[in-house]
């Protein structure tokens, strides 16, 4: 809708109400449409509260990566082993933080499946909220939850055996692990719009685990092996490489960036396609 039509419609209906002298006419307030397609901080705050209230989400996005780190990343064996500009403990910390962030963003995105099943999406279409604003809130929520997941693992790492050369590496690896997870917010949205189930995460949880192993996120794959070659085409590969690069000191390769960009495009286009279909007026 263009600005000019809004103005015309507003004028028209304002006249109507003033003449009528019925509810709300004194105020004449509701002729306006909300800014940003209905996007606002109350909506964001309540969405976040919903996420933090969901025990299952908290277990999978915060507790599980933290516990995995404590099991697989803490101890003299890892602390003593060198991983470039830090120890193996730090390497695993980065892996788990990225994994947690990706689970967090996927589950936040996939929450649209539940909301569709409950008829909430339809209810929202009886409000001024635009689909794009709804998706923006989902992504923002996903990224906040992803950030919490990263911070939890990093705090545990700092308190235990993770070691990196300087605060700069802590910050840069954390930021890359977190930012990369946005690709999986798009993945979650895509799956949330694609799959009819109310429990999409029961399907996506194992899928993410397979992608993490297959993409070499948990442990580096043997150079030159078939698995390593396949890994380069899977969606967690680029993020895993980029997040670890500051620690390992490997120079960033364009194939990693290409991997991230390509999957980001695939998931975003997929999500937009399914969303358009879902919100289309038939």
């Amino acid at each position, binding site marked *: 809708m263009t600005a000019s039509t809004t103005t015309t419609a507003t004028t028209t*209906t304002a*006249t109507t109400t003033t003449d009528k002298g019925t*509810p709300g006419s004194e105020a004449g307030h509701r002729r*306006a*449409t909300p800014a940003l397609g209905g996007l606002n901080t109350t*909506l964001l705050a309540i969405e976040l509260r919903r996420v933090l209230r969901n025990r299952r989400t908290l277990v999978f996005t915060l507790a599980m990566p933290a516990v995995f780190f404590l099991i697989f990343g803490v101890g003299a064996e890892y602390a003593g082993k060198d991983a470039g500009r830090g120890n193996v403990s730090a390497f695993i910390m980065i892996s788990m933080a990225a994994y947690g962030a990706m689970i967090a963003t996927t589950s936040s995105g996939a929450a649209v499946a539940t909301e569709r099943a409950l008829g909430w999406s339809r209810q929202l279409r*009886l409000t001024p909220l635009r689909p794009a604003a709804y998706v923006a809130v989902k992504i923002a929520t996903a990224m906040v939850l992803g950030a919490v997941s990263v911070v939890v693992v990093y705090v545990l790492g700092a308190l235990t055996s993770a070691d990196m050369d300087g605060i700069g590496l802590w910050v840069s690896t954390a930021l890359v692990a977190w930012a990369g997870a946005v690709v999986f917010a798009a993945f979650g949205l895509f799956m949330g719009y694609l799959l009819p189930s109310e429990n999409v995460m029961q399907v996506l949880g194992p899928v993410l685990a397979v992608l993490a192993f297959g993409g070499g996120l948990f442990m580096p794959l043997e150079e030159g092996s078939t698995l390593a070659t396949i890994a380069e085409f899977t969606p967690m590969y680029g993020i895993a490489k980029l997040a670890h690069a500051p620690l390992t000191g490997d120079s960033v390769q364009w194939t990693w960036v290409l991997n991230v960009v390509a999957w980001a495009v695939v998931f975003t286009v997929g999500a937009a396609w399914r969303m358009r279909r879902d919100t289309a007026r038939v």
Partner: protein
Amino acid sequence: MTTTLDTTAPSRMRHRAPAISLRGVAKSFGSVEAVRGIDLEVQQGEIIAFLGPNGAGKTTTIDLLLGLSRPSSGSVELFGTAPRTAVEQGLVSAVMQTGGLLKDLTVEETLRLTASLFASATEPAEVMRRAGLLEVADRRVGACSGGQQQRLRFAMALLPDPDLLILDEPTTGMDVTARREFWAAIREDAERGRTILFATHYLEEADAYADRVVLVRKGEVVADGTAAEVKALAAGRTVRATFPGASAEELARIPGVDGCEVRGDTVLLHSSDSDAVARHLLTATPARDLEIEARGIEDAFLALTADHDGDDQ
């Protein structure tokens, strides 16, 4: 300002647009015609019942009114604008039959969230008071009874202080007490002058709460009048006759006829004075094979709205 309106409203309208204007609206899903050409104009301040059996096209029409779907043909306008524009401005809101609630939010959170989406909205506490939800404000929606959830939907619909409120079979599945409480809240709200359209398949609800009743059957309007008129229509007798070549316009002019239907060579005339109609048919027209049937209100309503074999177009 008024000039703007005059260009959008039909010329016979006074200075304000009708709350609802449906012109030749049809909607098909594949080969299924859910709505087959409805014309309906609802003036501001009317309380109108959309009465008909399940599958009559009530929900489809409501979806069209709310901009949730697009008509296959015809036009839909609310207050002279497109439905989606009316929704975005908070001019229209709706209480749907089921769903549409997040179980993990509290009643108050649901209302605060919904309110935040509008440019301007009534305080959640105020709509909770009006919908009788204050005592369950902090209860999770999932823990609320069906009646409470329905009142929450009603409270949500009140938030933008809409000029038009649409209710789709709002009391389905409620027990008698919940139904009474729900209608009490609606009735109190209606006194504020809001235009209300509700779909129902309960004749007594239409009779008790609407100023005007629109009877729909198989996607078409079969009767439209005040509750009293429609009741009289339903309460009278039906004269059935074989009358080849009769037109509905001609039949409607017969004194005493308040509803008529032509099915091929057979005509059905509803009247509260069936004797006069029968006398006229036998003396002034070529009609023959007369049958006169008396019916109770419910029977007549069913007959008016029921599916008949052989009248598919």
